[in-house]
């Protein structure tokens, strides 16, 4: 059966509209993508994904606080710090300082008041301290350190953000964290790092 000229014209118009529609959707999507990105973001060609993150955080659960106990795979706190369970072999082979001693040491660094404190034993990694592939400069990586994470809690939080001088109309961001976590090397008692959680 021969197609009628009208039907052929309708099909041609439909295909035409479909192609134009697809092109428009693609253009709009591209524009939206451009607009949603900061105008200067990645102008220097930086990758969108931190290549270290996936490998260092594999198997961990995301968290915003230091937990009372660790899940088997550990946790990643605020996308910056990895806490994994310390293996029993490490615990038995290393002479680790006691929890109470870790808290005592931690109080040297959080000494404005006798804050409430707790401590968690973990293997500690600071993601940002790990050099990316190809880095050659002297650096100070903090990775898989057997550590006590001593968490101090205040009922009187103050803003800790330093920030920068902002432009007119911009607001200086603030944050009032309740917890200061002091990381103490569980073998030496040395201060490793201190970080805040909400």
């Amino acid at each position, binding site marked *: 059966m021969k197609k009628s000229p009208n039907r052929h014209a309708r099909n041609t118009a439909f295909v035409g509209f479909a192609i134009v529609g697809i092109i428009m959707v693609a253009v709009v999507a591209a524009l939206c993508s451009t607009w949603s990105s*900061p105008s*200067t*973001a*990645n*102008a*220097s*060609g*930086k990758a*969108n994904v*931190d290549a*270290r993150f996936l490998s260092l955080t594999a198997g961990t659960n995301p968290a915003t606080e230091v937990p009372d106990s660790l899940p088997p795979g550990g946790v990643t706190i*605020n996308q*910056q710090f990895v806490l994994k369970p310390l293996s029993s072999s490490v615990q038995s082979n290393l002479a680790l300082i006691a929890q109470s001693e870790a808290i005592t040491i931690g109080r*040297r*660094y*959080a*000494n*404005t*008041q*006798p804050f409430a404190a707790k401590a968690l034993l973990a293997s500690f990694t*600071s993601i*940002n*301290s*790990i*050099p*990316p*592939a*190809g*880095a050659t*400069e*002297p*650096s*100070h990586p903090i990775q898989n350190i057997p550590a006590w994470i001593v968490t*101090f809690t*205040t*009922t*009187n*939080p*103050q*803003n*800790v*953000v*330093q*920030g*920068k*001088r*902002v*432009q007119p109309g*911009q*607001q*200086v*961001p603030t*944050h*009032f*964290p309740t917890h*200061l976590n002091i990381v103490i090397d569980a073998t030496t008692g040395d*201060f490793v*790092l*201190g*970080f805040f959680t909400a």
Partner: protein
Amino acid sequence: MALFRPYSITRFSLRCDCYVFSIDLTYIVTNGIFNSKYVPIAKETLEKISAHMETLPIFLSTRFSQIWKLLIVLLISFGLFTLSSGSVQARSNACTRASCTGVGFYWDGAFRYGSGWGADAIIGDYQVATNCISSSTWTLIGNQNYSTALSQDGYLRLYTWSNSKTYYFYEYGDTSILYDPVMLSAMTKGWGSSDTFSSYYNSGNGYIEELINGVVQVYIHVDWSANDQEWSAEVHSNEDRVVGGYNHHSVFATDRYLFNGKWYTINAPSYMYNDTPHGAYSASGGTFYVWDTRQS
């Protein structure tokens, strides 16, 4: 007199909270909400609360009726409940009103807005006296279009957490989030010492690197590129002391920015900014000095 101790408020409690609490009691007394002859809470006890934060025994007259005692207990309970259960912001504001005035952000330093992927300086003669919230010095790069787009390192003292430790710290953010500062280690050097702080984007690996004395402390992955370089001291209230004193200035020496792969020393007097309540500065060439006018 009978000792009536519904709560024991000790030094463990917070100065600001106690102070606010004591104001509430004073208000009750001075406004005659209770007849003074039935409320013999001595003035010195109230002063003791706010000034020394020692244990708070509340002495009540034996003539004091049980109903008034109950009301006092309820009042104290409500006050403590409010202090302990309010929002973080609310507690902070209470503290701010009580002990830190003029809370805000204040800087003494040099600020350069323009292309440039790095900033560094030798910051020396650090000393900071008493503070209320924080006092810091740092070098920074950022994107001026976003208040959170920054990466910095330097010295930081946070009174909330430590009244004697100054830390090396870094802080960074993306275009939509600013993370809290991270303390790298305690600074143990004294007057006359210095450290070199650098913040720069390494196009070789795609990370912003925060260095102290040439050693990379962290590699920061961000979603912005830099058009803002800053070298500054910063405080957050009237009571916070800027580093240095009028006889012992703190120094930001050899202040440089990175542009097209080359470091340039700034002409500091052209870039200075000062809005700290009690801070002052002088600048010459690529160096400037800051100090607190209340500090020798």
